[in-house]
């Protein structure tokens, strides 16, 4: 006689929990790092050294930590974050972010990435493309647009303009 397992009706709401081990097992597979696709733009007006100098300055102004600035090789690399913001009881934690800029004498290439620390700790997953979320863009764009402007390339147009300094009282 064929055995038919009996599941009490009261246990039915718990059935979705049965898929949890499968989900856990599926997620235990280590993902491969995703290569960042750098954004390229013409930058013939600037030398590699000037590009690196301007890039390092922009990065520091925007709260990044410059890890490498090689004027000879035309390479600048920096990290930022994680960036925490309080939302009442809630919290956002964006980043850490990675930025890598390279100048080959004629054009520049900039790659930006996000490390998802809550997912296997080392997973650069996003470039500055349509998949980037707005929180990420807020961290990337001031630097990337600054480099584009420096090279005379079109910017995203989404970097907020810096607030003008408050006018000093008359007589001072």
């Amino acid at each position: 006689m064929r055995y038919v397992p009996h599941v009490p009706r009261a246990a039915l709401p718990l059935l979705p929990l049965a898929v949890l081990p499968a989900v856990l097992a599926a997620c235990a597979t280590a993902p491969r790092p995703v290569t960042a696709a750098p954004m390229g733009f013409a930058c013939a007006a600037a030398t590699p050294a000037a590009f690196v100098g301007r890039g390092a300055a922009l990065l520091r102004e925007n709260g990044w930590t410059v890890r490498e600035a090689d004027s000879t090789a035309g390479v600048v690399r920096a990290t930022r974050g994680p960036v925490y913001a309080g939302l009442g009881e809630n919290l956002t934690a964006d980043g850490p972010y990675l930025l890598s800029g390279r100048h080959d004498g004629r054009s520049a290439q900039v790659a930006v990435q996000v490390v998802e620390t809550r997912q296997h700790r080392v997973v650069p997953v996003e470039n500055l493309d349509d998949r980037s979320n707005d929180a990420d863009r807020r961290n990337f764009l001031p630097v990337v647009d600054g480099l584009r402007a420096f090279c005379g390339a079109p910017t995203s147009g989404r970097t907020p303009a810096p607030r003008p300094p408050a006018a000093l009282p008359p007589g001072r």
Partner: protein
Amino acid sequence: MRRSPSPAAARAAALALAAIALPAAPAALRAQGLDGYGGGPKIYLSKDSSRFLRVTLWSQVWSRWQQMNPGTMVNNNPGTEETKDLGIRRTRILMHGQITPRILVFWIIGVNNQTFTTGGLQGGDIGGGTSGIDGKRPQVFVHDSWGEFTINKHAQVGGGVLTWSGLSRMTNAATLNFLMVDAPIYNWTTIDATDQFARTMGLYVKGNVLTRLNYRAVLTKPFAIVGGQQGATTATVTLPASAGGGTATVNVGDNAATNALVATPARFNIANWNPTNNTLMPQAYASWDFFDVESQTLPFTVGSYLGTRKVLNVGAGFQYHPAAMRYVRAKDSVTVAGTRRPVSPTEAPVPVPAGAAQLAPGASTAAFNGDWVNVPMRHWAVDAFADFPLNHDGDAVTAHTAYYDLDYGPNYVRNIGIMPIGVSNPGTTVAGPNTGQTRFQFEQPGFAGGGAGYPVHGTGNIWYTQAGYLLPRRMSKGFGRLQPTGALSVVKFERLAEGYVMPEVGLNWIFAGQNAKIQLQWRNRPQYESPTATSDGNPLSAANGNTAKYPTQVGLRRLRDANGRKISRQDVIVQFHVHL
């Protein structure tokens, strides 16, 4: 064959490792709080700041002027028309620990709703211990206590005493950044009935899929309802000479007059909470973000970003609790003393189901002319939220709208007054003008009882909308920011013959983002006629004709004055809010 990582990928991974391994000062993004506040006070447990203990403290103190409901007694003063008071709406400590990047532990303890007359610990008075409940020594309790494991960004699982809920955005609302002074309470559909101050014990899975879709699915075990536990708390009070002296037995305690969760219905077909419930409650909520994707690290949804984010989302959710409610349905006929007779739906349950019959459906006497029927609680809701910086001079708009379709079983309505300070006038009677008649010594309350409650939950539907405009910086001359707000509730419940539209208007004076602010709010509460005590000042009895005049408990109408105008009551609340 497994593909080897490319040199570019290897370089990216190396830099990522460097970013995590090297000491880095955690940066702060401009948020809705004080500049530089970042995520609040933290103790970092690792150099890369991925492991930390975060602590948040807050206090919300209310100063109120309230017109009390008709028939209200405040601190043994029958017939109190209005009251000015101060109270602690919330004072709490939050601890959020990130043990590893994958493991989160969360805890909130605190106190709520302490007033000068209510919210204290039972029997906590010094001396004779006769008052039962007063406003002193409120009980600190654990609100949230849960842990979470991150599988990936698509799924995180956790369990404990949870704020994580389904149904709507505001069912998961943060309390630190409300647009209005408080939530409308419609959003917390089981508040302190089968939950513990909007928390329940359960398991959840939540996450983000398709980049812009946040979801949360929760399976909870709702708290049991003990038969009449809160409505049964009474005390004997001495009446002042101006009120005729003597003593009276009155309901006391937190929301006593309005919180009789399993009060025995005196009529058929009125549902209330089932004190024998033993089922699980699935619930879920999902939202789609069109611009910024909102954080779902913790369950608490933001009330106003003050223009620091560009957010537009729509969401939908549900709650389903099998056998959560029950009511008495009239039998077709009943046999009493050997005689079979039909049962009219307009008659009262006889005998009144109480005691064992109340706790054990079906255990009533053979003469009982009704049947206990268990029904599920079924709610669904859709909502939308928007917060946009206008980029003129720091001004921003915030708007939220939600439609709730609530089903608690037939004719269920629950009256709620936040931080109640009043109870119903004593129901003592004195001789009436005619022989054999009696009249109430004091004015008797309407449907919501004494205090400041009004119908908040019920079987029916609610449309709630709130909006605010953060004024440009120049308009506050650099001293804080101003945010006028408004809300409108359109409510229609099955038991009420007339729905209500409740306007609320407010102003937020924001000193340090959401960290320090003063909020002002005015509200106009509806009043409904009493289903039992009648509206004409006389008891329900055959002698005075009120048994025929007030035949049912359903189809309740708005209270009206002698000119036929609807009676309402007003509140003005000023909230002093600080959080670190």
